[in-house]
């Protein structure tokens, strides 16, 4: 049930990256994780990913800042934001900067999987 898509999951809570990585692996994706913005950026530089999923609220570099930095080097890389803060101004900023989807934690896993599958299909068509 493996597929060729490699995802990068970014969250400063290692339990989050661990569980999400496990869920995507169950669905046959190859998953890398990063627990900070700079770490994630480094990985994006060195590896081709099909999609990046990142938490917003992180120290040093938050998810939106990461999004902006990723856009600079891989402009067409699909980007999904996740946050526990439903009314954060950062969500709006993330949408403006080109995040495809923003999901509120606790995540509805089936919805998340559906979104990712659709994004990758569209991306493959492109």
């Amino acid at each position: 049930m493996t597929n060729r898509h490699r995802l990068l999951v970014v969250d400063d809570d290692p339990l989050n990256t661990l569980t999400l990585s496990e869920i995507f692996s169950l669905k046959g994706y190859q998953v890398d994780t990063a627990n900070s913005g700079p770490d994630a950026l480094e990985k994006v530089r060195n590896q081709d990913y099909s999609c990046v999923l990142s938490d917003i609220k992180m120290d040093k570099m938050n998810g939106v800042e990461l999004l902006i930095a990723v856009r600079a080097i891989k402009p067409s890389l699909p980007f999904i934001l996740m946050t526990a803060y439903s009314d954060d101004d950062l969500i709006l900023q993330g949408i403006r900067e080109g995040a495809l989807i923003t999901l509120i934690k606790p995540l509805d896993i089936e919805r998340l999987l559906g979104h990712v599958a659709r994004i990758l299909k569209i991306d493959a068509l492109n």
Partner: protein
Amino acid sequence: MDKKVNILIVDDNEQNLYLLKVLLEGNGYALTLCRNGNEALEAARLNPPDLIISDILMPGLDGFALCRQWLSDEKFKKIPFVFYTATYTDPKDESFSLDLGAARFIRKPQEPEKFIAIIKEVLNEYQAGTLKQSPSDLKEEIFYKQYNESLIRKMEDKLLELEKANQQLEELNQSSKTLTYRIEAGLRAGNLAWWDMELPSGKVTFDNRKAEMLGYSPDEFSTYEDFTKLLHPEDHPKIMQAMQDHLDGKAEVYEVEYRIKTNSGSYKWFRDIGAITEKNAATGQMRVIGIVEDISKHKEAEQKLFDEALRHRNLMDQSRDGIVILDQRGGVYEANQRFADMLGYSREEIAKLHLWDWDYQIPKSKLLQMVRSVDEKGDHFETQHKRKDGGILDIEISTNAAVFAGQKLIFCVCRDITERKRTAQALEEYSNHLEELVEERTRALEQAQQELITKEKLATMGQLAGSVGHELRNPLGVINNAVYILEASLPAENKKAREFAQMIASQVKKSNRIISDLLAFAKEPETSKSVVDIAHLVKQVLQNLPPPQGVDVKTSFARNLPPAYADAQHVEQILTNLISNAYQAMPHAGTLQIQGKKEKDGVHIAIKDSGVGIQPENMPKIFTPLYTTKATGIGLGLPIAKKLAETNGGRIKVESIPNQGSTFTLILPMAGGQNDQ
């Protein structure tokens, strides 16, 4: 008489000719007029007259010479020759004339009847052949001697007369100069100028002074066009009318006041007065002469007087006090509008009243005495006046007397103090209740303070709840993810493990709902109002929130139920909270009634359950956050509902009887601002 008698008249003086012509023509004679002897002879040869009347002294052939020639001419010598002369007549002239053979010598002035009688007599004699007229048998030298003497006499007389006339002319000239001087000086002193106009040509001659009065040179102001060009446009028709009225005989003189532009650009007021001085009925030609006066100063003074009168009138009319001026008999001399209004009369009515018609408290005799005794120092007192409609006014009066136009008048300034008195009384009554009021206010203040404290507490708690809620979402998220993995990894036959995993998943969802409630309560709600169909919304909420088993739901909406004006999502939230509360109040069974109707203060949506009800002692706490009597829930449903209702301009009303049920009524503003309050 078939043919008119023809008379030839010879005279070098036109006026004499004219007079004789009028007289003789009037008596039925035909006339030939000549200016000297030669002319006369010529005319007589062409058409011999029946009689000739001649003057003596004439240029060319004089009367004496003409007579001599006339009588020596075979053709004329029988035709009567009459001298008619006034000038310098010496008795010798008459005898000389008769010596020459003239039929008659008539001396001027002669009364017309006598003159005509003489002419008739001569003509009769001529026709009867009895006329004594024969050429002189004077010797030539004697004739010339007498002739010369007579002429010299006449010349001397003429010279004398000329001198006299000259002297008269000189005197006339002198008096004319004096008159001109006087007129000039008078015009100048009076700031006047003359003008002289010919009609219908409209040609005007202006006194140079008119130009000078306006600051122009005479060249710049010499024609009628110059005049009309400088005239104030509004005054032109007025001038035309005044002139027309005079020409038509409607006005004895032409008199008009008008504005005219000076050289400096400002306007001066002028007055023209003039009249027709000459009129030729036949040709329609006329001459109008008059003077123009600079009346700017009068106008200015007039305006000042008018303004002052107006100001005085305004002061009186615009006074906020009633002003009435009384005469010595207590009658109204004058009253302003305010005074009439105060008493409810028209101004015409008030003018006919007397003091005792409204000052009903004091007897008439006393009032008259008061009127007579008021002096210029005046008086000040309070009284009561009766209105036309019988109403009583409290009045404060200031009076004083002054002599005006020969009579003593009493000025009364009346102020209506009815309201003031009433206010004072109310104030007194009010102060009696003050203590009560203070207590009441204190209670209200304490309550407000308590509410403020509660609100502040809530705000702090809201912030805290917000951050706690958010922070809890992260670990919940991990649990959520982990349960998903667990469920996915568990073999299908491990039913027990799967059941417990599901339990975790559902509790995560529940926890998340609590967090959402907390966040909703902590968040300052933003409203996006629109027209909300209540019946539709209730239906929608009931679909999302089906009643538990045993609970019967009944809805009824009034036909005239208007839509509410509110944030639809908020209303949905409120209804969800109230309905789920109602369900929970009926754990075993019951009836939920939802009723919508229109009331004065808005749209009412009543949610009535037949549940456990609320104990009276709990009633004040039900909207307090985190207060709950239920095993489940954290006590935010009602506080959120209340907060959202208030955010949308509405409120929630509660009625409850323990063990019978509760009714929560949501009241919202009607769409279209139809609320009566």
